[in-house]
């Protein structure tokens, strides 16, 4: 089953993004992402099971540095 994670990188931005999405009513949580998913190695992402595309758009508009998507998670 696909587990869509929006890869952010630094945990501070991941948490900021999570709070932002929560304010938009989007259910999500911060997770550590796999080495292959993270930009240049270790990092964090936001697991967004539903409304993932909308969530990514909100994050990018808010200046959260999104570096990609991992569909399978950590």
């Amino acid at each position, binding site marked *: 089953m696909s587990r869509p994670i929006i890869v952010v*990188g*630094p*945990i*501070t*931005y991941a*948490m*900021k993004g999570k709070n932002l999405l929560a304010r938009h009513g989007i259910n999500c949580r*911060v*997770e*550590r992402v796999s080495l292959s998913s*993270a*930009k*240049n*190695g*270790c*990092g*964090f992402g936001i697991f967004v099971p539903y409304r993932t595309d909308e969530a990514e758009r909100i994050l990018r508009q808010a200046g959260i*540095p999104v570096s990609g998507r991992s569909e399978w998670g*950590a």
Partner: protein
Amino acid sequence: MTYLDNAATTYPKPREVQQAIAEAFRRFGANPGRAGHAMAMASSEEMYRCRVDAADFFHAPGPECVAFTLNCTNAINYVLKGLLKPGDHAVVSCLEHNAVMRPLHALANTGVTWTEVQVTPGDNDATVASFRSALRENTKLVMCTHASNVWGIRLPVERIAVLARQYGIPTAVDCAQSAGLLPVDMVDSGIDYLCIAGHKGLYGPMGTGMLITPHGEKLPTLVEGGTGTESLLEEQPSDMPERLESGTQNMPGIAGLHAGIKFVRRIGREHIFNQEMLLLRSLYRQLSVMESVILYTPIPDAKYFAPVLSFNVKGMQSEEVGRIAVRAGLHCAPAAHRFMGTLETGAVRVCPSVFSTQADMEALVWALRRILMKKSGRKH
């Protein structure tokens, strides 16, 4: 115990700060920002909440602007050594702490120069004019204390920041004595770098501080290392705040600092300031009628002073007087003593906290009277 050395570090710390630190050992025992397991995420969450509240307290653009440091000195070093390059010039005030002056002297070896501008207590127009006249073509930074750690003299940092911005020069403010007491609005003021002590007016534990800036991504680093992110990169990641936070952070300290910030918000920064000023003004009045006491500043006016007062006793070294829990000597700020002509004697510094009372002021006056009687050879 009468403790009036709060300008060095506040004591006691609020109960909730002590509890938060103890609790951090139980709840936040894992390294924040590294692993993804539950306790590591809980630590990261707590650290993030502290950033959010600190950013909110100083009205910084966002939590990513808050980098934790060892102390205020550490934050100041980051700014000075990051921004000033050979041939650059800086403008500082004549009241700076060694946290500013010693890094500048170290940078002098690389060709950095600076001008110390005269502060005119009680005349902000004159102070701002001094800053303006010190600016040069190669001035790359204006840095000043928000409030003197010796005399309590406040600098009009908002006006100084506006002035510097007109010339495209960044401003950094040493908030060691002011954070938690004086209002600081980073967004409104346009101050670029706030250097904060966590263990003074914010009531956190010693070993905590912050550098708050929206420009951290461009600031060259002094320390590089593990950040928990982008580990394949050989160079330091650019994202704030991790860029400035290499290595394991002081998690219990940050939890304590967070509790301290919440404590100040709950009591009210302005209320704490007013209460301390009231005590200090009362002390000032008592000291001003004691013939042997030398006071260097006018009675502290809230507009121009922070709640710090220094004095001397005629014919005595400050260290002889400062045997109660106040701080004597030069307070790591020879520039401020040179300004007031007390470089030879030092001074006795009194600084209350939110926990100080009128009884503490009376105890100080009583102790001072005993010292004076002893000095004059009379029985007491």
